[in-house]
């Protein structure tokens, strides 16, 4: 585990370097339990950095989100590094981006923070409605300690953790220039809760389940936009000529959208759970993506974003690969 003071000191040192543009971390948000991404440009900015079980945002998405606009004539692009604070899953996103050449190694400076899992905001609100009035959280062994203005409360970690954290296999960053704090002991075999139940259901029941979920989709695209792996400049969903997915918001088009996205994430999803966290309609997208993660792991022994030297899943081939799906 890591002390916030250590993170702040390190951040100050990093942003003072000439080859670093800024560091992206987390700070306390503007209300309740919310946390906001925080850009540190000066040593003073570092004072606001925090790291707690409320720090869900996967900041690697900001590596590819920045628009590269044409520069005025004669102006050179800023080639300084972006420094990032990453948890275990976030670091896997960075590795995956690296292996598929979405980012350049020289462009980033990764600082890892071991993580015991982040809080699912819906579980938090359900169990502690007062969290909307303000709360701070910290890990304490197998418990999470919540500090409300009125006093402290403790709860078992698994009662509050986000679904993707319950089955996390990589709580420690797999790739980082430096890891701040002590590593934590992994706690899961990677089997996602809820996925097995769905697998056991009949195809009709599964279809009915997803029909209900996808019908609620508002098509705000927050799942796509928050995803560090969704960085195509020309997304199939935005295409108008041809229009692959109509803009009409209905079950059929919504399903086309979500299934297209799930397929584009095969062997690439790192299971950070951001899609599920940000969905205003609460669609359990993690279950869909996690199923694909498990398929790829069980059939091909591949886990996205765990080895900076590996080839991307869909660009690699092993003569021993299963072929039984080929008709």
């Amino acid at each position, binding site marked *: 585990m890591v002390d916030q003071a250590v993170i702040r000191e390190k951040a100050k040192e990093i942003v003072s370097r000439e080859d670093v543009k800024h560091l992206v971390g987390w700070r306390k948000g503007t*209300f309740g339990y919310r946390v906001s*991404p925080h850009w540190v440009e000066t040593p003073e900015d570092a004072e606001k950095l925090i790291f707690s079980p409320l720090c869900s945002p996967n900041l690697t998405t900001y590596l590819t989100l920045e628009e590269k606009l044409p520069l005025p004539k004669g102006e050179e692009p800023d080639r300084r590094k972006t420094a990032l604070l990453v948890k275990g899953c976030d670091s896997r996103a960075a590795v995956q981006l690296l292996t598929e050449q979405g980012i350049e190694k020289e462009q980033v400076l990764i600082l890892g923070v071991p993580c015991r899992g982040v809080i699912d905001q819906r579980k938090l609100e359900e169990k502690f409605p007062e969290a*909307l009035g303000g709360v701070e959280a910290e890990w304490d062994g197998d418990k999470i300690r919540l500090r409300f203005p009125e006093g402290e409360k403790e709860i078992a970690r698994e009662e509050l953790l986000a679904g993707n954290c319950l089955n996390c296999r990589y709580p420690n960053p797999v790739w980082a220039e430096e890891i701040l704090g002590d590593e934590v002991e992994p706690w899961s075999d990677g089997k996602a809760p809820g996925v097995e139940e769905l697998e056991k259901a009949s195809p009709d029941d599964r279809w009915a389940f997803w029909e209900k979920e996808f019908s609620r989709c508002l098509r705000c695209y927050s799942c796509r936009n928050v995803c560090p792996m969704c960085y195509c400049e020309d997304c199939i969903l935005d295409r108008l000529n041809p229009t692959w997915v109509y803009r*009409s918001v209905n079950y059929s088009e919504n399903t086309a959208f979500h299934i297209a996205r799930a397929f584009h994430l095969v062997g690439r999803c790192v299971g950070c759970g951001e899609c599920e966290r940000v969905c205003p309609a609460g669609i359990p997208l993690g279950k869909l993506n996690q199923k694909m993660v498990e398929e790829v792991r069980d059939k091909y022994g591949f886990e996205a974003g765990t080895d900076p030297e590996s080839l991307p899943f869909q660009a690699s081939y092993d003569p021993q690969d299963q072929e039984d799906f080929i008709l």
Partner: protein
Amino acid sequence: MTEKVLQKENWSSFVQALADARELWLPVKEGPLHKFVPYSSEQETPVDLEGYANSSVPPKEAVFPQTETMFRYQTGDQEICPPEAIKERVLLGVRPCDARAMDLVDHVFQWDEDDTYYLDRRKKTALLGLACHEPFPNCFCTSLEGSPGSTQGLDVLMVDLGESYYLRAVTDRGKKILQSVESSLEEASEQGKQAEEIIKKAEGKIGRKVEAEDVPEKLAQLWEDPLWDRISRACLGCGTCTYLCPTCHCFDIQDEVEGYEGRRCRMWDSCMFGEYTLHASGHNPRPSRRERTRNRINHKYHYFVRKFDKIACVGCGRCITSCPVNIDILDILSRVKEAL
């Protein structure tokens, strides 16, 4: 003034009486979402008028559907089929901020050409509002001429008194609606005063505020300010804030053709999307999240004010609550105010 009382034990006969005469829309809970849907007595989802501070999706959907068929056609044919006629409907349980929002959006759909699709729905939609008891932590309606008991835009205001609801007709249409369901109502006596107290108490619970008077002028001066880079860099460019905003009203129009069956439809669009102002040439006057964020704020707190002399924000706080990365419009406004 028509003032009535509805005992909660008469709730279902009241709802049924409303639904018998017209299409009735009610807030229901679907997953974690509270939204307004047309009522049917067989529906499975529970009607929930009390378990939420406000619906997560604003009731604008009833007058400005997310996807709306404008007409249907057969490809290669000159004939067009108009959409099905809209029935008279009543929305039950609309929060005062959302009713005010509809009042604001009305300006947009009739300032030059009348938008018949919108206006037809709007004219046929009566709003039975429900005053707020427990404002959400991000509510700030009182900063923008609103209140938990505001009647602007409503036909009837309802106030929850615990065992009963107090109902007050605000418009003639509201009066008629109350008359049509009279059998489930009682005459009000002292309840009006009780309702006023509840509203006042709710007003006191609103914790967030902004003094917005000088914002339009300041926004005009901050066009190129680096402030926008700092505000927008956390933005993911998703449509959550705009889709859940009761005053956002941008749409796109497209033809959707399957086989020979075509339909022209319009659907919500969002100024936060990259394709929003993308020209056919490939040029985009709002090429990055910086310009898009700036547009969202300017549209509500600057352009709309210049055009209609009103701020196009009602302080419902949905954009704050739902933003995945905690971009907070009140924080933006305070930074705008501090910047000059």
